[in-house]
């Protein structure tokens, strides 16, 4: 394998393992310097890019602190849901604890959205029970926005429901949007936003008022890679602050970022 090809692949493999961008640059430069000095072939000096990236990610993980998982926030037992003759949820159990970001996976039609709607209290199960301790924020997969209103007006409207006054709502909404790499106050009305930006707005609205439980339905459809990374950083901060989140997605790259996975 040619030197540059190896280095490029190595950088990609590091990124795929959640190594911070700032770290990647240094690690790749160091490896490249090593190759220059030894005049060795990269495969001989380091092995395959993926295997070496795994070792490096492992070494970097030495300081990673596992999340502290605490008391139960959401407990669903034996949930059943039918639409006409079609069974959508069949005996589903779920527990969500303080300090957890849990992934809800499954192909389209397996009831991810239905489960989230039931947990959010928007739909009634045909059987089973939901126990909820704390406040809930919910971001639907689409819809939920008012096309004629600007993001800041959404903040005020949704913030009021969470007990935030106008100023606090705008401030908090703006800060959350910034964490997702989005300047919400400069944005046009919701109807003119791109799909990815609408998702960001939905996530921000769900998180307004810092509810104990975040329920997000396909929050990163249409987001670019940078935004996906920012989204997870926001979630990690969220759960480290003692809250929790349940994220429905069929994106497999999310598996390594979440603390647990529930497959429907």
């Amino acid at each position, binding site marked *: 394998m040619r030197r540059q090809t190896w280095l490029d692949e190595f950088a990609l493999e590091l990124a795929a393992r959640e190594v911070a961008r700032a770290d990647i640059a*240094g*690690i790749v*430069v*160091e*490896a*490249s*310097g*090593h*190759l*220059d*000095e*030894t005049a*060795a072939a990269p495969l*001989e*000096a*380091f*092995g395959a890019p993926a*295997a*070496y990236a795994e*070792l*490096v990610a*492992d*070494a*970097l993980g*030495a*300081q990673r602190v596992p999340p502290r998982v605490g008391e139960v926030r959401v407990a669903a037992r034996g949930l059943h849901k039918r639409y006409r003759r079609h069974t959508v949820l069949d005996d589903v159990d779920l527990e969500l604890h303080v300090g957890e970001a849990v992934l809800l996976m499954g192909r389209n039609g397996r009831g991810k959205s239905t489960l989230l709607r039931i947990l959010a209290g928007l739909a009634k199960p045909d059987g089973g029970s939901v126990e909820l301790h704390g406040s809930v924020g919910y971001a639907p997969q689409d819809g939920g926005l008012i096309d004629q209103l600007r993001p800041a007006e959404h903040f005020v409207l949704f913030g009021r429901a969470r007990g935030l006054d106008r100023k606090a709502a705008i401030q908090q909404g703006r800060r959350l949007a910034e964490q997702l790499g989005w300047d919400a106050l400069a944005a046009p009305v919701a109807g003119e936003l791109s799909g990815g930006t609408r998702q960001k707005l939905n996530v921000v609205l769900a998180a307004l008022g810092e509810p104990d439980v975040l329920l997000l339905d396909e929050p990163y459809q249409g987001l670019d890679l940078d935004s996906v990374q920012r989204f997870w950083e926001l979630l990690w901060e969220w759960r480290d602050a003692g809250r929790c989140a349940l994220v429905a997605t069929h994106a497999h790259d999310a598996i390594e970022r979440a603390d647990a996975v529930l497959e429907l």
Partner: protein
Amino acid sequence: MAEIDQRPAWLRGVLDLCLLALLKDGEAYGYELARRLEDLGFGQVAGGSLYPALLRREKLGHLRAEWRAGEGGPGRKYYVLTETGRDALEREVVAWNAFAASVAAALGGVPA
């Protein structure tokens, strides 16, 4: 039967410790450390084990990294032993010496 070089496998457990020790008297960059280990008789140290070991100790706060401009190149990463690293080195040397003594005791009866 071809002789298998067992040094890489043996080194794996103590590479970190040796690196801390080599940095005791001053900073060095990765390749320099690899060469010094080789000179000490460890055989060739693959970059694939060297840099992750350095990175691990850097993350633990035992080593600090400093980037210096290289000649024409993009710069070199120098590793410096921190105070925490110095403490860790002292503790680990004691532990290693005890372990090495156990190995020596176990092998004691075997004629070399």
